[in-house]
């Protein structure tokens, strides 16, 4: 397949945006807080450069396997980024909030079940079984990711745990992109690989455009500093300690009655 001018533009824009974001992560020292997210961006730079060399020097089959190997790595790293965002939000004291353990299990199993159900319904048409696996696998992954990010918002609000500023920005970017990606991958699944390949390619370009916007959002937001925290006034500290004692005592009483 011959690369068009638009393909080259996307390639260059993607590489440039990833490099800028990587620079921001290092210059502003965000990599210390978000090592997995930094690795995810770094892997994307590596993928773009490697695929360029493979395309110029390698075979068509070599390009195919390299592309999808990086695709799998990308999915694994995206899941790791989800873990990192959850970890930064739901471990305020260094351990997972104990009131959310059941909710985590429910969220993960529910997300997998719903994504699996939707993937089972998809019936993409393709010449090779491997193409079907790839289309379905990509759709499954995007559905899971979108559910996990929306689930993160729900759990944080219900549990009363605030997002740190940059965690919120990374999660929002990846969450919105994941939801768009569900639609794109559903379109890919509907079109398959035996019908209109131009429409298939156009959908891929829409996804890349959405991702470029997401990268631009991260660059701006991660460059900015989070709002400064405030010093706790003494009277508020006193109130807080008393409230804590009060709730502890109430809780003990309820527990005692239930025994």
């Amino acid at each position: 397949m011959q690369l068009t001018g638009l393909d080259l533009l996307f390639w260059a824009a993607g590489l440039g945006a990833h490099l800028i974001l990587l620079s921001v992560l290092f210059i502003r020292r965000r990599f210390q807080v978000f090592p997995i997210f930094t690795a995810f961006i770094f892997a994307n730079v590596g993928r773009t450069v490697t695929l360029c060399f493979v395309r110029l020097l390698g075979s068509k089959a070599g390009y195919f396997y390299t592309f999808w190997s990086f695709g799998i790595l990308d999915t694994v790293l995206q899941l790791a980024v989800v873990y990192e965002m959850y970890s930064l939000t739901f471990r305020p004291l260094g351990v997972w909030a104990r009131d959310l353990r059941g909710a985590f299990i429910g969220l993960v199993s529910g997300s997998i079940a719903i994504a699996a159900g939707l993937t089972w319904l998809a019936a993409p048409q393709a010449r090779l079984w491997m193409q079907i696996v790839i289309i379905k696998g990509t759709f499954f992954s995007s559905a899971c990711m979108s559910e996990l990010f929306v689930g993160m918002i729900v759990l944080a609000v219900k549990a009363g745990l605030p997002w740190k500023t940059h965690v919120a920005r990374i999660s929002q970017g990846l969450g919105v992109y994941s939801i768009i990606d569900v639609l794109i991958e559903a379109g890919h699944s509907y079109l398959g690989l035996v019908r209109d390949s131009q429409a298939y390619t156009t959908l891929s370009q829409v996804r890349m455009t959405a991702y470029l916007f997401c990268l631009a959002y991260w660059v701006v937001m991660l460059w900015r500093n989070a709002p400064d925290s405030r010093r706790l006034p003494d009277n508020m500290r006193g109130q807080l300690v008393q409230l804590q004692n009060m709730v502890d005592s109430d809780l003990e009483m309820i527990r005692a009655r239930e025994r």
Partner: protein
Amino acid sequence: MSTRTVYFIVAVAIFVLALIAIAIYYYRRSQKSSQKNWERLLKRLTAVDRSSIAEVALDIIDESGRRRKDEASAVLESEQIWKMVGGLKGLEVLEANCAVLVDLAFYVQQWYPEALVVAEQLRLSARDIEWHVGRLKSAQQTGKLESAFTMYAQPAVATYYLMTRRVLALYEERNLAMLADLRNAL
């Protein structure tokens, strides 16, 4: 287009719309939480019939919060308690006040990271109480509340009574302007 493809398209459309609706709803809730301030949060305590609540609570506990063991204790019948509490709504008041505590913890964790430990303990305790009240509500839904009422509801009301009394004490200590309104409400 096959029937399965139609199902797929409809299912994906519902899935995406549901995700967007849920995300927007909870995102807006989190934005609202971020904009609250300490005093406004404390003002969110729900108004109840305090004399009835006190009567139900003091039937099983004394003023210090200890369980009464004298002969005159625990004499209220389930029906009386149900009426005085105002049914399940009385229990929901306790739950609503726990939600205030969770919001207070959210506020502190967001703006005062130095108080993270206390705020997280407060949040966990309040969530724990919510869970216990949830059990009472579940008993009501499954039609077992009557049998469980004395066992669960009266202690929950007593807990509410103690909690609001202590919050009032906090307000008195700080001599806050809204104390009179708050006292009337509670």
